[in-house]
């Protein structure tokens, strides 16, 4: 018994695991067992079932490939995610830049506007958008009373609604990395550029913009990754044509009850997300611990 323990211990030590420290083992075992049983095992089961029914088969993946509906949904997911990313960048970049130019206390105060909505219920924010965007909703009423439009605009159950809702929810994912990129630019670099004769436009284009590129790539990848798996907004603010992968997965699990097929779709979404995530890790080395 002792020999087995020492052999296992020796093997583990070889890999750099200091078994002498039993405290570490005691601390890590409960969370690791918990996640193995309740997280890793269910995920493994999803991946396994999508390939084995019970023999190895690719039939579910072939079905995804053959039916144009799924092609349309994948395309739509990518398109909505890309458009959300672009609109978050366009809206978030100037805002983050503005916040970075403020004094620390003012910035902290204004950041409340970014942080609080970010943390408040996504469901409620989307519900509020229904109130604002529906035919007799807030936006249409205001535009009508101002005489800017003669009949209500169709702002939801279409792509516009999904994009407004998703941009609103995901903007903080863009603003935070951009803000930290702007804050990381030492102010004397800008001063040096100015003292060497560059005007503010030139300083922005030659100094600030290039130095904020890490923030841009981090923010864009983050928004894109989160968008890919988005469920609530397309379901509430989109129409049937705005279905994204998440929504079709839910449909197959809860309505059609075709689980292995839903698992194959879930696996596609998982792999798609992971590919982008590894790109994110590669591009943003050691930004967060």
């Amino acid at each position, binding site marked *: 018994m002792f020999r087995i323990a020492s052999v296992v211990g020796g093997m583990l030590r070889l890999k750099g695991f200091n078994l002498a420290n039993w405290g570490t083992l005691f601390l890590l075992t409960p969370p690791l067992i918990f996640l193995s049983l309740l997280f890793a095992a269910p995920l493994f089961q999803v991946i396994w079932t999508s390939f084995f029914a019970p023999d190895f088969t690719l039939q579910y993946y072939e079905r995804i490939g053959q039916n144009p509906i799924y092609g349309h949904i994948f395309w739509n997911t990518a398109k909505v995610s890309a458009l959300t990313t672009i609109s978050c960048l366009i809206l978030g970049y100037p805002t983050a830049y503005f916040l970075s130019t403020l004094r620390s206390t003012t910035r902290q105060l204004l950041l409340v506007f*970014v942080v*609080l909505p970010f943390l408040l219920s996504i469901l409620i924010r989307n519900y509020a958008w229904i109130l604002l965007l529906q035919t007799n909703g807030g936006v249409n009423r205001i535009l009508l009373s101002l005489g800017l439009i003669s009949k209500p605009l169709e702002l939801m159950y279409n792509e516009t609604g999904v994009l407004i809702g998703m941009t609103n929810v995901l903007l903080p994912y863009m603003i935070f990395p951009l803000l930290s990129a702007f804050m990381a630019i030492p102010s004397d670099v800008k001063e040096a550029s100015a003292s060497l004769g560059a005007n503010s436009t030139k300083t922005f284009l030659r100094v600030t913009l290039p130095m904020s590129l890490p923030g841009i790539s981090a923010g864009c990848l983050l928004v894109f990754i989160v968008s890919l798996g988005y469920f609530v907004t397309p379901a509430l603010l989109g129409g049937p044509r705005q279905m994204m992968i998440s929504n079709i997965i839910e449909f197959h699990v809860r309505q059609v009850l075709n689980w292995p097929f839903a698992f194959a779709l879930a696996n596609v*979404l998982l792999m798609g*997300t992971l590919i982008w995530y590894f790109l994110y890790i590669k591009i943003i080395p050691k930004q967060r611990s």
Partner: protein
Amino acid sequence: MTTLLANKRLPKIALATFSAVILLFMAMPVVAVVPMSFSSSLSFELFPSAPSFTQYRQLFSSSDWIVSFLFSIRIAFGVMICATTLGTFAALGLSRLRGSWKPFLQGFLLAPYIVPTIVYAVAAYSVFSRFGLVGNALGITLAHTVLALPVVIVLVSSALSTLDPSLEEASNSLGAGTITTFMRITLPQIRLAVFVSALFSFHLSFDEVVVSLFLSGSNILPLPVKIWSSISYETTPILPAISMVIILVSLCLLTPALLLGAKGDSTGPKL
């Protein structure tokens, strides 16, 4: 001279205006709910024509909504205890770990944050349903704990990374055992991060909709699921008032969390 000045200031003013509009855009849905909760009409009114507490009265006299609310609170409480305990264990373990295992284990412990929620929801649904964990508080509590773990681990880890290891060494060399050192030296220094992550994990669970939707069955619905299923069938307005209740609960949890997070060394939520 004046045109020169205007030329210099104009971009700044434009930038500030644009940013103000964006910040308002972000806060808008939360703000819009406030007047609606005092209205008695389903269509949007910025200033309710007949402001009243009808929605709130209806809400507090409806046992349905109260049952859902309490059910969600119960689940969130369980998640808070499980996730904070397990997450703190994990963060402490990771901080003591050296060598090639560390990034691997760290990646595994933080993985629930990367996997799309819908994928985990489907996975948990298919496995939990075999063990009678669908349609009751236990299943949702367990699944939410999985989702909350990475948040706790990140917050507590970042607090641990600022500790001075020589304090623990000093405690050990003065004859204190591992447990005494932990209780007297380590814990007091990470207390704040543990408390903040408890608030965040409570909030995460209280508000979570996707996993809850799959695991809630048809008996008692957690509050977000009940809202979800009422949105399409709303005939008399009551959801704005419920939204207000949720926003108030969230604010009670998040305000101390953010203030303490800013006060402590961790730079607010790293979500």
